[in-house]
């Protein structure tokens, strides 16, 4: 499927694309980017996997990004049938208590990747079966990949 066709198909799934803050962009990226409001993320992800025209069955990367004001979760999806690639992004505005739905039930690989995002950014994934720190120890304070994180003892700030 071409990016244009993907875009039309996904837009058709929502009665009111503006309400779910559906936005498409190809600027500054080699793939088609889709932004969506976190509340509707799980629903769209589910359709992206089961729809026979999209069939995104391979989640190959899940990244957390700290944009200063908000936190973002970026999902890289690929279809093993059609070999097309798409990027889904969801921005979470509440920094103090960032919550987003887990997609662990759709792609099993999200289990570890979401734990990693929780570990480094403090993003809590709703309905995750085992959300605890992956690399750092349980008592570790703070979320190191957030931009404001500092550790005066162990960190060399350039």
């Amino acid at each position, binding site marked *: 499927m071409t990016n244009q066709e993907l875009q039309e198909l996904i837009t058709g799934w929502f009665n009111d694309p503006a309400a779910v803050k559906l936005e498409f962009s190809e*600027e*500054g*990226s*080699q*793939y088609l980017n889709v932004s969506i409001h976190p509340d509707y993320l799980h629903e769209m992800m589910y359709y992206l996997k089961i729809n026979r025209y999209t069939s995104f*069955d*391979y*989640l*190959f*990367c899940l*990244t957390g*990004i*700290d944009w200063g004001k908000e936190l973002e979760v*970026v999902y*890289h999806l690929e279809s*093993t049938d059609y*070999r097309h690639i798409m*990027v889904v992004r969801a921005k979470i505005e509440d920094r103090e208590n960032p919550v987003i739905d887990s997609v662990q039930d759709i*792609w*099993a*690989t999200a*289990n*570890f*990747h979401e734990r*990693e995002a929780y570990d*480094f950014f403090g993003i809590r994934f709703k309905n995750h079966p085992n959300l605890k*720190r*992956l*690399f*750092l*120890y349980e008592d570790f304070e703070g979320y*190191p*990949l957030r931009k404001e994180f500092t550790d005066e003892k162990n960190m060399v*700030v*350039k």
Partner: protein
Amino acid sequence: METATINNNFKSEEYFINMGPQHPATHGVLRLLLTIDGEIIKKVEPDLGYIHRSIEKMCESDSYQQIVHLTDRMDYLSAHINNEAVCLAVENALQIEVPDRVKVIRTILDELTRISSHCLWWGVMGMDVGALTSYFYGFRDREMINDIFEETCGARLTMNYNIPGGLMQDIHPNFVKRVKDFIVHFKTKIPEYDRLLTNNVIFQKRTKGVGVLAIEDAISYGASGPVGRASGYSCDVRKYHPYSALDRVTFNEALHTDGDSFARYLVRIQELWESISIIEQLIDNIPEGEHKVATNAVIKLPKGEYYQKVETARGELGIYIVSTGTKNPYRMKFRSPGLSNLSLLNHITVGGKIGDLVATMATIDIVVPDIDR
């Protein structure tokens, strides 16, 4: 009669056992929390982070040239391929076309790296299931590749031979001859590998039907590399997203359908042959030309996002760079093959025995720094 009494009164109960971080099959510093009932595994929970070095955080304050040097410390057995991944990402972002000579040399060294990694894996695999001889054989052949790398770039493990824009220096005058000598030598050694392990009845009994991974699960768990391909999942990045000189060679993707430990073993053995074939197609025709193109001393990537996939010895490595136009990446993520491959360990070992877990872990080919980063 004493045993009978014990059997009557002894209730089977689940209990915890720690495997690692020092067990040989854990390949370094990985702890597995096992829940077992007798000898049967009920749950496997990996405990990671013993050597987490916050490479992603360090990248945010390093220049792109410096980042290249961090990546070979991740998967040190695929160091050359890891370096290449970052260089390719930076070159694509800056739209630099590297000379043909660079592409061909990079690809030859990639495949040598793969052979070297698989040799080490093969040796350790044998040792994990109780055959020490393979350990020496694997290291003997790997040593020749290390020598080639040492002569080419002065390093045996963490190469740093790739730089954004090309290669650190040109190849050594002996390079072509040494690689050819190695190919001749190694072609006689793979049949030896087959005689020692592949056709060995004990080895087959330890691995056949052990740790079976179905193709749907392989895709869902994001398995890549030999682990995915052993389940019949065609996932070779070299085929689907070719880079460097891979578009000008022909090779077969090693695929098996059984999905068990033995299939993962066979895929890697077949990949040894395929890698040799790729090198043979390239080694006689290394194009003349420069070994690098000039780049700015300070590399600034244009604002935007860049993703580069490569096929390391363990599977798909993804480099994800978010740039805001400065000389450092705003965010850098490494999608390591090891983390996804490890996440499926629980799924394929539950219900088996501890001995099977050791064999399964060996065929997943875990390199812990690749997971921890």
